[in-house]
């Protein structure tokens, strides 16, 4: 049995490296993205092999489930504007940065040689260091197991994520919100002007799958407390539902008002901050939850975070702010209804 497993590991490792190498070599960006998606799926297989089911689920849901479509959407938006060839050289305002975007041909210029040599010796050094590191010290596994009881959940990863290192997760949820704000600040959501005729099959499939996906997402969020799952994985599945909506061009989507969206986006962090404040009031320490209420509180927190993560990842896919975001500006009257003209 052991031989079989190591054989499987070897095969998996080789395919991962081959896929990564293909990612670099392939001339066409679309092919590279497809390789990246396969790479992601195999990575989640590797996580399963390393006894890390949570990470496997997250890699599958977020690492490939969402990043793949993000890349494909970005590629379509870039190619739709720049004609069919690779990123055409933007006629930058004469600055030297403009020329560097031109696709350089693949011949090995001396600069390329030096970079390859440097990276190879870096790889050699790192691997040599890894090999000579003596028996790795025991990690924090026993501390986690020791105080798992008071953490209110019995899945160790969720316990570490939400209770022991809750401050990390709060900052991380803020990073997600920061990403959403940045995407909104850069441009308007580029909904295609004329709606392509989506096939009836797609509409039927979406109408059928949507409730099921939401149910599974909710189940994942709820299951986080006991086995693998949690806010991030559940949120990613929810975002899959929203992405399906965005793809099938339902007419009411571009006209969405921005306030409900903003409330949804900030729900998770707001609940987190309130919980932190609650910790200070009740237990006089930030983010410290009373042991008996820890379970339900964490579940409520996970639900809120799951929802806002779903919305944030969907906002990433939409790629911009809703048309109505700046419309309610009181003092620039003429800004009403100008939509993406300015962007």
């Amino acid at each position, binding site marked *: 049995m052991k031989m079989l497993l190591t054989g499987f590991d070897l095969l998996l490792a080789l395919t991962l490296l081959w896929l990564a190498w293909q990612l670099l070599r392939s001339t066409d960006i679309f092919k590279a993205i497809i390789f990246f998606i396969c790479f992601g799926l195999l990575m989640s297989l590797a996580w399963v092999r390393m006894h890390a089911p949570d990470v496997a689920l997250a890699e599958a849901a977020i690492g490939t489930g969402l990043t793949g479509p993000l890349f494909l959407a970005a590629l379509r938006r870039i190619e739709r504007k720049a004609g069919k060839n690779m990123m055409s050289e933007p006629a930058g305002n004469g600055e030297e940065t403009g020329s560097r975007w031109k696709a350089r041909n693949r011949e090995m210029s001396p600069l390329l040689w030096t970079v390859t040599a440097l990276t190879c010796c870096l790889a050699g050094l790192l691997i040599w260091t890894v090999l000579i590191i003596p028996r790795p010290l025991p990690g924090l596994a026993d501390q986690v197991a020791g105080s798992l009881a008071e953490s209110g959940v019995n899945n160790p990863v969720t316990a570490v994520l939400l209770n022991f290192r809750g401050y990390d997760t709060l900052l991380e949820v803020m990073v997600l919100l920061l990403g959403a704000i940045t995407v909104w600040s850069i441009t308007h959501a580029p909904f295609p002007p004329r709606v392509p005729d989506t*096939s009836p*099959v*797609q509409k039927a*499939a979406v109408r*059928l*799958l949507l409730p*099921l996906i939401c149910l599974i997402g909710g189940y994942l969020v709820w299951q986080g407390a006991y086995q693998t799952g949690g806010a991030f994985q559940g949120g990613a599945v929810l975002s899959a539902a929203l992405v399906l909506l965005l793809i099938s061009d339902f007419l009411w989507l571009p006209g969405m008002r921005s306030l409900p969206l903003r409330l949804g986006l900030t729900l998770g962090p707001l609940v987190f901050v309130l919980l932190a404040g609650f910790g200070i009031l009740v237990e006089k320490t930030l983010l410290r939850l009373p042991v008996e209420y820890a379970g339900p509180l964490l579940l409520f927190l996970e639900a809120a975070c799951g929802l806002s993560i779903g919305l944030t990842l969907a906002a990433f896919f939409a790629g911009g702010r809703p048309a109505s975001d700046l419309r309610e500006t009181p003092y620039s009257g003429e800004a009403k209804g100008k939509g993406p003209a300015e962007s």
Partner: protein
Amino acid sequence: MTIPEIIGLACIAAGIPFFLSGTIGMLRFPDIFTRLHALTKADNVGLGFLIIGLCLQTDDWFIVIKLVLIWVLVLTASSASCHLVARRALQKGIRPWTRE
């Protein structure tokens, strides 16, 4: 090794040739439509056998329900996406391969 587990293993073994034929079909067939055909048909049947084999191996009903749910979802997803890919191919003007 109890009886259900042996039958389960047999079912999984039965599923493998279908996956194999699907992959060979995908590599050998001339154009996109035939490849789609090969993939969706063969893989779904192979998956069915796989799911039955796995169901036999577990004794927890909840997992069986989840496995069946997975099978139903994969069926709908692969058929819908196969249709969409074919439709897009037709819109882009790829004519199916005819033997002349």
